[in-house]
């Protein structure tokens, strides 16, 4: 029988006894982002600690992807600052886009080796493929991969060069429960190895299970970054799902499933590792 364990809790109890003392590697302070007259983010401050999975959740259109793009410096904030505070490495931040896609005509191994050739440090491509469970598919053309395997290849690409921070934008979106869980497991393993993992997701079940810290974005502002259960306790509710509804709506009962892509009978609810 496989024991029921929470990877985030295990990490907190072993690798990081005092998570508040975790080193901040990426920080955003008083971030505001406007597109013309439309304000997407307002006075958002966030600290991304090393060796932890930080999840940003919230309804569609609340600025999760925008916040990730600001952290990646793909865009500049209208006001406020984003500061990388981690070690100086060949690659500072890895990135898994929401819909990762790769140049067709190349195999999985060739694709990872191509990205490996973009960093100065030596990269063990085989180890990366092993880490994302794609060793058996190493000679398969990328256009022949399933959606989940493409996402895993994207995760593999994001960790090329061992960046201290990796950012996953909706890593479980559109994946079956097993594959979605596998992607989150990789996030767990990266955090356990000391990487700061930042991700967005609508899958509150996986977030609750794997994230060390959760931040809920609603109408351009955020709740305090804290552990999922702490958030639930603060709002006097049972779990992250109810805390989410308490934050994004006045009446959780009226909100139904909200934007959570996971159906009520999601098999991941009972999945144990």
């Amino acid at each position: 029988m496989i024991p029921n364990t929470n990877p985030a809790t295990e990490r907190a109890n072993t690798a990081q006894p005092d998570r508040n003392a975790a080193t901040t590697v990426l920080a955003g302070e008083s971030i505001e982002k406007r597109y013309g007259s439309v304000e997407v983010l307002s006075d958002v401050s966030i600290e991304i600690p090393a060796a932890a999975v930080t999840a940003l959740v919230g309804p569609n259109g609340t600025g999760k992807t925008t916040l990730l793009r600001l952290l990646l410096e793909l865009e500049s904030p209208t006001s406020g600052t984003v500061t990388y505070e981690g070690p100086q490495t060949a690659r500072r931040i890895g990135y898994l886009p929401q819909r990762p896609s790769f140049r067709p005509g190349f195999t999985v191994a060739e694709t990872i080796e191509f990205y490996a050739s973009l960093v100065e440090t030596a990269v063990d491509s085989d180890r990366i493929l092993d880490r994302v469970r794609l060793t058996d598919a190493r000679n398969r053309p990328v256009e022949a991969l399933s959606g989940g395997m493409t996402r895993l290849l994207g995760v593999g690409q994001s960790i090329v060069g061992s960046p201290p921070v990796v950012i996953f934008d909706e890593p479980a979106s559109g994946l079956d429960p097993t594959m979605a869980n596998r992607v989150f497991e990789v996030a767990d393993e990266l955090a356990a190895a000391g990487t700061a993992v930042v991700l967005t997701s609508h899958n509150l079940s996986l977030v609750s299970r794997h994230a060390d810290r959760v931040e809920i974005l609603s109408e351009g502002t955020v709740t305090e970054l804290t552990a999922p259960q702490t958030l639930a306790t603060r709002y006097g509710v049972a779990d992250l799902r109810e805390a989410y509804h308490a934050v994004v709506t006045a009446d959780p009962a009226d909100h139904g499933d909200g934007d959570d892509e996971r159906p009520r009978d999601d098999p991941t609810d009972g999945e144990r590792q």
Partner: protein
Amino acid sequence: MTAHSALGQGTAIAAREVKTVLRTRIYALLAVGLFGFLFVLVAGGGGAATGYTPAIVDLLLPLEVIVPVLAIAIGYRSVVADLDRGELAVFTTYDVPAPVYVTAVYLGRSVGMLGMLGLPLVATGAVIAFTASPDTGVFATHSGVDSPVLFGRFVVLTALYGLSMLSIVLLGSVIARSLRTAIALAIGAVLVAVVGGDAAILAGLTDGWLGPSSLSWSFAVVPNSAYRSLVLETVIAIAAPTEEAYGSPAASAIGLFSWIIGPLFAAAAIVARKRL
């Protein structure tokens, strides 16, 4: 970023472009098709039987049209496809500088362009060597003699023209935000640069704001006119000298190189500022 890593990144990206070209069968088919077309032109026009220079005369005008088409085929997807897949955003996390990326993509695609264009032209030259009259085998050292050297010069000039067209198409691919707009932009950019330029010169002469004395530099400003001018002055005029100069070879050469370098600078500047 050190110079070494920029060189390493550029080499990796250029190598990926070369592999992409080599693995895309349509490009090989286009090269074969081009050879067939050139063969029909020189055979049908009689150039193949009479020598290199007559064959060049047969090929010049069709190549002015075909080369831009090849450039569009090989270059319109080059950058916009990376943007479409989100790879340009990913490249920023590897600190790939925009000039390195643009130059590497261009160099990689250039290998394809030169292969697609150069191999059929060299094959055509070989056909002429076997079918033309005996004195075309002479490597001329003075004017008035047909020679493979002249054909070689024609191939080099055509390659330069192709590279300038590829540079313009790549700029269109950088500006585009989707594959659909990329093909439209590539066609539009080539039409403006080629047909628009010739039309502007013609309009200038007709309306009087361009005098005959300005023609020399006017030809140099338009890529296909610069190419035509160079071929006429440095290839055909060698074998068949005329009293009237078509244009200034130096100005045309500068013009053609400017059409290679200029769009690449613009493309790098746009990629650096593009919302990825």
